């Protein structure tokens, strides 16, 4: 079971992970990304490529499901404006045992960072600026090859 959702509304971690509980696995692993609030950012806005976003996330989740023999995976990613402390993204994976669930979860978020068409814009004071991609993100994605 692969579930991919791109939405502007906040999401429930509980409900997303509960959807993985009925699959018969012994292990569910998850990651939640939040808007950081430690460096003066007032608001963050996520732009995306409608159509391609869902396809790219599904492709990443399907790769993970195949590689780690998952029973299920879920990705929920918000778009639009959001504030420090709010949830941006959730990745959840379900497998018979924990090693595969944990590794697949890390893989999905590492790949999403470099292979899903989202772009972040930050507002500090009155100014908006686009966030630059990080070399550390491509390094993290590369370690799964």
């Amino acid at each position: 079971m692969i579930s991919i959702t791109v939405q502007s509304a906040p999401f429930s971690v509980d409900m997303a992970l509960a959807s993985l509980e009925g699959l018969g696995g012994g292990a569910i692993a998850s990651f939640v990304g939040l808007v950081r609030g430690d460096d003066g950012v007032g608001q963050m806005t996520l732009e995306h490529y409608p159509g391609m976003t869902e396809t790219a996330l599904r492709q990443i989740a399907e790769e993970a499901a195949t590689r780690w023999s998952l029973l299920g995976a879920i990705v929920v990613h918000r778009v639009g404006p959001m504030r420090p402390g709010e949830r941006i993204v959730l990745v959840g994976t379900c497998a018979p045992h924990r090693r595969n669930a944990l590794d697949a979860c890390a893989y999905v978020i590492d790949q999403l960072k470099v292979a899903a068409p989202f772009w972040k814009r930050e507002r500090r004071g009155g100014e908006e600026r686009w966030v630059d991609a990080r070399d550390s993100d491509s390094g993290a994605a590369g370690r799964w090859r």
Partner: protein
Amino acid sequence: MVLTIVYFAWVRERIGIDQEKVALSPGIASLRDLAAWLATRSEGHRAAFEDMSRIRVAVDQEFAGLDAPIQGAREIAFFPPVTGG
């Protein structure tokens, strides 16, 4: 050949539009050729494509390299490196 070109993030902001339809001459074979040609359309286009190392591309909603051919494409998107998650 008529193509839809879509732009995102600061690429869109510099050009000033989020998409346009273009008719290409046969001489434009690769995505790199296309970017070079688009860069001549306005000052905004020139500024957007000024540093090609900061430009990424998708062809019919799949990531592609700049040396990939345009042949058969219907929608081409130009955007900065992605920053989701």
